[in-house]
């Protein structure tokens, strides 16, 4: 083996550090973008659902100020979401807020920018401000006129907290990987140096030490690489689970309304198609299950069996590692009649990268 000079060692270490920085940086960007995307699609999904409910009322012929149910629906919106701030409906003609989850906002005028942006049918516009993100969808009357806009504001604090956590994780792994790599370079240098000068007659012993050291460092390197992805996944796990819970709640709410409207729970037509559309839009979702209260699967989208595994000895069924699950009850007249379960793949970014 050719000996490592000191200059070579320093140069190789610097090169290694740069490569580690780029590698971790690229992965940080991907995971961070996914975390933002998860939050954004959760909010968009919620907003479009509320928009659908209001739009049905408007298609019935009601004008925007006549929407009696709007205020109640706005008050219920986002109650369970930690980062939710306000949701309002404003008049497209003058920008005045007609209804809001924060009653003191009613009558105030929204920014000109929002009025200009909230025009394309069924398209969510997104505007980011200091500590808040605004998401809006226009409302059309039955004659096809843009009469107003539904706008929700969310605080960015939680998102920033996740980002900061990810930055910390990224730096932690940059130091770990860089340190391990530099140690490896140092070891190579030391091996060359010792081989030449000190233990000339104890070569076998030296090679053994070197091999053990090299193996340990390589193992450490591999361990750090693999745990880095898990660490990033752990950082946005809350975002992923919150979104799964919101989707499960949304489906449960639609089911409850449909049951109230006279459709038996076990006779929903094309519910699988509806759930599959949700699954297609949200790539992290592995499966959506609707079960009765005994746990019998009534409707299924995706392949839930792939996400579960059974213990060979006890027969106990549990979710595989890397799979998450959120469940919301379906109630009929206040009594639970079943559950909606949304299973997510926590490693979907990792799988996308590799």
């Amino acid at each position, binding site marked *: 083996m050719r000996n490592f000079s000191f200059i070579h060692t320093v140069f190789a270490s610097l090169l290694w550090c740069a490569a580690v920085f780029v590698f971790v940086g690229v992965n940080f960007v991907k995971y961070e973008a996914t975390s933002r995307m998860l939050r954004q699609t959760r909010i968009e999904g919620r907003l479009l659902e509320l928009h*659908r409910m209001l739009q*049905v009322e408007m*298609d*019935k*012929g009601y*004008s925007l100020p006549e929407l009696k149910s709007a205020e109640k629906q706005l008050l219920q919106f986002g109650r369970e979401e930690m980062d939710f701030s306000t949701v309002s409906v404003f008049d497209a003609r003058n920008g005045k807020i007609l209804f809001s989850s924060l009653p003191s906002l009613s009558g105030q005028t929204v920014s000109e920018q929002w009025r200009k942006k909230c025009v394309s049918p069924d398209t969510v516009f997104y505007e980011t401000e200091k500590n808040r993100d605004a998401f809006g969808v226009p409302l*059309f*009357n*039955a*004659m*096809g006129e843009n009469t107003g806009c539904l706008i929700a504001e969310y605080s960015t604090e939680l998102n920033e907290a996740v980002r900061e956590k990810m930055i910390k994780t990224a730096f932690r792994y940059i130091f770990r990987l860089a340190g391990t790599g530099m140690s490896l370079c140092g070891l190579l240098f030391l091996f060359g140096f010792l081989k030449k000068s000190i233990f000339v007659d104890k070569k076998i012993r030296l090679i053994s030490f070197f091999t053990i050291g090299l193996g340990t460092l390589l193992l450490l390197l591999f361990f750090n690489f693999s745990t880095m992805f898990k660490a990033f996944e752990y950082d946005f796990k809350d975002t992923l689970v919150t979104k799964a819970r919101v989707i499960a709640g949304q489906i449960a709410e*639609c089911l409850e*309304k*449909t049951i*109230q*409207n*006279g*459709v038996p729970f076990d*006779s*929903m*037509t*094309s*519910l699988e*198609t*509806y759930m599959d*559309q949700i699954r297609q839009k949200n790539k992290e979702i592995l499966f959506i299950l609707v079960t009765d209260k005994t746990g019998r699967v009534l409707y299924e989208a995706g392949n839930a069996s792939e996400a579960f595994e059974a213990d060979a000895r006890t027969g106990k069924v549990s979710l595989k590692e890397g799979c998450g699950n959120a469940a919301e009850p379906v109630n009929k*007249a206040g009594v639970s009649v079943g559950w909606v379960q949304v299973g997510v793949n926590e490693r979907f970014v990792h799988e996308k990268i590799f």
Partner: protein
Amino acid sequence: MKKFFSFFFYLMILPFVPAEAASSQRVFLVLWNGCEEACRGFSEYLKSTHEDIEIIQRDLDGQTDKIPDVIAEIKNAAPDLLVTWGTLPTLKILGTGNGNFVSKYGTIPALFMVVSQPVESGLVPSLVSQGRNITGVMHLVPLAEQLQSARQVVAFKRLGIVYNPAETNAQATVDQLRQYAALMNFELLEHPLTLSANRQPSATGIAPAVAGLADKKADVIYLAPDAFMNANRKTLIDTATAFSIPVFSASEGAVRYDNALFAFVHRYYTVGQMAGRKALKILKDKVQAYDIPIEAPQRPLFVVNMTAAQKTGVYPPFSLLQNADLVNIPSPDK
């Protein structure tokens, strides 16, 4: 001195005299059978604009023999706009030729609403160049769209229809259905009602006609824009429901009040609102009626009768139910 005081008095009141006294504009509204949803939508729209518009409302109470008196009244009143409701009164009052219209009403513009097929019925030659000082609002969703939406609820292979062959609207619909049957790959099971010597159908023929369609295994029955069938729709719907055959209707009334399963419609209230908007263009913006195209509202709506769904056991798809106007919801204990 007297002249000086008169001049002084004139100067004093000058700021309070409007340049041109605002005069109220008059709309003559002819209704077929009472002020229903479209009429309400029209009146409420004009009211919401706070314009000085007076609506003179006349109801024919479903009797065509009242029409000559109403025409005479329109001539005497010389309103700024004539508004009619429904195909039959509109055709009787506005006629089908421009010469006849001008001789009757001179320059009075006209606006119709709730006319299902203005071109096919001969009211106007086209929807965009009317050839007469008439505009209007249609209430029907195009038949192809209705059939496509019906396919989402019932994947039908055989569509049945019972109709009055003496009625222009019904016959025109059947002609269109024949064309779509070939295109959309379904069998059309037609059952025209037998006409008497004076070309009048009898309601007693409806139930046997539906039974005949049931024998031929109709998957769904279409209630077309047909005045006779709509007047007797309860018989049709009840008989079809007894055979567990869902009925889908061209108009919302059959779903809302008589247990037809569903309709894909423009709501009458919206049709009225849209007619109100066109009326405002004519009266306030001084746009000529012939420059305003005849159109329907933009966003049709699914209306589903949930009691009928329960009775026939045909539940529309879940996603469709989320976007529909659900009516006649059964009580939970049933």
